[in-house]
């Protein structure tokens, strides 16, 4: 049977061709213009690219308008980095363009961007893969950039770009690169602007917070096909847009970093959710995080109270913590704490009973596991208080 596989396949191929069922062409297939290589080189050179090696190109673009930001504790952005100071010059801002977003070993990277602050300001170096066989060189050149710096800043790079880069090295038989400190700005952005911005994509953050609007940008979802089309039919304007998109991503990343480094140090950040901001600052400086929440509380944000109480607890500021209890929201936990407070601080057993009763009722009607524990504790407290108040006690 194996012998006639070829003819069976041929027949299916022919009959689907005659039936007009041929599927719409995916642009990634055959190199239809074999004589296209000179045209490709010329086009790439015209767009600022220089040959780095066989099928791999590079270009460097200066970005004069971007300010370096401040040295900061890496702990704000990475649990592993706590205590190590990074200066802007220590960081490479990194982004990959890939052939798909679903992951898996069939997805490769064909374009990388590395932004860094040097003596002449911010500049971006890009590396471009002209065709598949150049991948090992592309990966090595990219790896050289990554390993030159103390930290790698990215947007979702911790879960997408960096693992993909690592997997591609494995697939090409290259040794892993030494792991730099990874600063994923998406994680910070989510804490700061989730619920404030329509979504936390880099371009939304740029538009909503940095006030930068990209012109002529290619949506990320169209980037893979831009490269496939280039492979199949040669250069076209969308590929140039994809290259600019990649460059704009690391430029935006550097601007965002500048904003964060200043804002986290100052405890003030444009449009940021104060609780999210405090949670980032608390990784490095509990006192400063508490000040952010105190300020927010003064503007009437009662939702800041539980988090602020937690910070006071960690800081050992017991009295300030107790003073906040009456301000707690009337949820199960809040009521439970108010009951303790009423009994122990105010000596008001009646209010304590009332609070415990409401807490038990609220927690008892909830389905969350932590509330079940709370319900039992509130019940015990209630029974003890009732005994205390019983006439014959």
């Amino acid at each position, binding site marked *: 049977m*194996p012998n006639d596989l070829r003819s069976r396949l041929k027949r299916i191929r022919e009959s689907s061709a005659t039936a007009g069922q041929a599927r719409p062409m995916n*642009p990634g297939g055959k190199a239809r213009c074999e004589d296209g290589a000179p045209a490709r080189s010329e086009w790439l050179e015209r767009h600022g690219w220089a040959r780095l090696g066989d099928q791999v190109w590079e270009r460097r673009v200066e970005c004069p308008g971007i300010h370096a930001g401040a040295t900061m504790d890496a702990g704000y952005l990475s649990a592993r980095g706590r205590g190590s100071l990074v200066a802007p010059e220590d960081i490479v801002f990194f982004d990959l363009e890939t052939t798909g977003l679903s992951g898996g*070993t*069939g997805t490769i990277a064909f374009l990388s961007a590395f932004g860094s602050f040097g003596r002449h300001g911010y500049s971006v170096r890009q590396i471009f893969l002209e065709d598949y066989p150049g991948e090992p060189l592309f990966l090595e050149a990219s790896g050289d950039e990554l390993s030159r710096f103390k930290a790698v800043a990215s947007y979702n790079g911790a879960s997408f770009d960096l693992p993909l880069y690592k997997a591609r090295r494995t697939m090409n038989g290259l040794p892993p690169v030494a792991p730099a400190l990874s600063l994923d700005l998406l994680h910070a952005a989510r804490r700061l602007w989730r619920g404030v911005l329509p979504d936390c994509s880099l371009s939304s953050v740029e538009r909503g917070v940095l006030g930068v609007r990209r012109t002529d940008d290619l949506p990320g979802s169209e980037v893979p096909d831009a490269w496939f089309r280039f492979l199949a039919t040669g250069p076209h304007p969308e590929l140039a847009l994809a290259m600019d998109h990649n460059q704009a991503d690391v430029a935006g990343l550097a601007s965002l970093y500048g904003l964060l480094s200043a804002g986290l140090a100052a405890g003030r950040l444009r449009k940021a959710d104060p609780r999210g901001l405090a949670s980032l600052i608390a990784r490095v400086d509990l006192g400063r995080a508490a000040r952010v929440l105190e300020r927010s509380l003064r503007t009437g944000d009662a939702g800041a109270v539980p988090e602020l109480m937690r910070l006071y607890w960690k800081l050992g500021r017991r009295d300030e913590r107790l003073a906040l209890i009456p301000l707690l929201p009337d949820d199960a936990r809040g009521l439970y704490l108010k009951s303790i407070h009423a009994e122990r601080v105010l000596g008001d057993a009646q209010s304590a009973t009332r609070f415990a009763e409401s807490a038990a009722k609220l927690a008892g009607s909830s389905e969350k596991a932590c509330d079940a524990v709370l319900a039992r504790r509130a019940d015990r407290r209630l029974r003890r208080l009732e005994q205390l108040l019983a006439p014959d006690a």
Partner: protein
Amino acid sequence: MSAVTDFLDDFLADPEFGPSVGHVERLPPRDAVWADLPADLPDGIRRALAARGVERLYSHQAQSLALARAGRDFVVVTPTASGKTLCYNLPVAETLVQDPDARALYLFPTKALSQDQQAELNALVTSGNLPIKAATYDGDTPQSVRASARDTGRIVITNPDMLHSGVLPNHAKWISFFAGLRYVVVDEMHAYRGVFGSHVANVLRRLLRVAAFYGSSPRLIFCSATIGNPAELAGLLAGRPVEAVTENGAPSSEKAVLFYNPPLLDPVQGIRKSSALQSRSIAARLLERGVRTILFARSRVRVELIASYLNEHFRNLYTENSGVRVEPYRSGLLPTERREIERGLREGTVHGVVSTNALELGIDIGGLDAAVIAGWPGGLASFWQQAGRAGRRRDLSVAVYVATGSPLDQYLINHPERVFGKGAENARIDPYNPYIYLDHLKCAAFELPFRDGEKFGDDPSEGLSMLEDEGIVRHTGGRWFWASQGYPAEKLSLRSATSDNIVIVDATEGRNAVIGEMDRPSAKELIFDDAVYIHRGRQYIVLKLDLENRICTVEERDVNYYTDAVVKTDLKVLCEDQRFGPDSAPAVLGDILVRSQAEKFKKLRFHSHENVGYGEIYLPPEEMQTRALAILFPEGSRAADVLDSASNDMRKAALLSGLLQLMKSLAPVQLLCDAADLGGAWRLRDDHYGVPALYLWDRYPGGTGLAEALGPMLGSLARAASERASTCDCEDGCPSCLGVYDGNPDFARGRKKTALSALKILADAWRA
């Protein structure tokens, strides 16, 4: 005296049932054949075995260990409950204990089986305090546990579907696993036949290809129920020769197997008492005596009807039996519903189950004493697995096979030697089905680029250039690279013809609950608008079959009929590849295009099957290319002369349709396939060949090897057909032989005699 012995004595003496028992086979208990534990077995493993009461091995277990130690691929053929898991657990555990980097992969066809195996492994590992972590990795494994399963699981237990869509496309996350992979265990191998098996063969090629990339070349261990060609099937799955261990050293308990042919009601028309009703009565007798019983029915509709009848029966018996509970158990139930029933059986709150062959795959339900098999389950392996459901204890157990009126059943019920003799059927797959092969070629290209000259089973270059034409791979620098955004494994299901299954949604009173699913071609013939759909004993009317959105909305409603689609079929011959038989009675193997369309449906009353109305079906036709065998009657040949003795075209049509029906229904005996796997049509004057013709084709696009296999078997098929027709008591054909002719009965008159002479000529011509 056990309840089973009592039952047997009374049943055989019962004037209502006894006379219909055509054959009683007593399978004596069998003693074990032992072998000593090898002296050099690692201490930890020896301790683990001792803790589980194993001081020596059955001969087949010892043989397996020896083969594994010699680095061979092998397949172990064992009946149920014969200690087969030790055949692979022992060599795997030994290797894993000796080499801390070694890993193993276990494949089971279902998640339920994986869970059983995980429990069994844990018991072994704990009792020997072995440094072996076994981890289940399937669709139910929480995301949080997956990374540790990948990184620290020494034995990873999964199913082919998960391997195909989750593991292989992400192999870069499994580097240390693949680099250390020493064994791949494929249990329940007999489940991998037909379409599913053809897919799994390709998945295994992908697995070995990825393992090779990381420098490992694992050995393969297969386990299978009894089939005729274990080494061949394992070899086709593995893509390389595999040795077979067929001598089984395990003991077995005594079993009685009864062949029961329901009595004739109308000898002229060949109508017998319904096998479903008779099975139901037999099951009721068993349950009444407290014998825990499983009843296997052929269709899910029957399962539902029988279970609800039995429950009704026991509810109305105001005796201690009124507490007897019987549950339907079939494919299409939701996993939670299944688990509930399995638990009930284990805990004794469920006394009987009615099942389709969903249980065939060895889910351990334990403690059953009797199996009633309503209708031939499609193969010897299935038959013995179903019969083996009963009798896991030392006592006598019983299995009752109740024949239906189909030609296949009527043939087998009179030939017990075909069941108890040596001749198990062969399981077939076609890893080179061009559609299946191409789909896996895509997945393989996604996983790793192909090098020029690299093999994928066969030479993949033609397939790769097809993919290049489609623009999803790119050939450059001596390699073929995946060049598409897609993730091909995601779109490919290993289980059905098309991955776009239709979801069935119950919309009664705004319920909006998913109650099942069905593949698209079947949906077009079964759940069209206004069709009656039966699920867990409830009747539903199809409100809307929405093919585009793959949703079928149904509503619960009480009706007294079921529906049956009338399907019209057009054929086109695409090529003639191979001829069988002499020129006087040729059969031609080749590709055909089948276009089928359900145009209307009949409403048939339950029980009486009386036609109570028609309806229209408005659905697009279903088209496919597949492999077919055309049996021709060339002009001037003796077979054609017999045909011409029928005086007019209507008579010829009655004859041809009868021959087709008989051969199509007997072919599954030889092919080990399901009756539904074969399609058939007859032509009075074929468009392509210009002579009368009978077609039999594989109902899976591209074929799974059935048509090819049938060619050399035509002689024995014709002999079996001729024997079936001649021993049938009817006059001009009945459902048990030539089928019922649904035109003017005058034209069918005398056709059986003509059919017999035609079959005799064919049998002589095709004598090997």
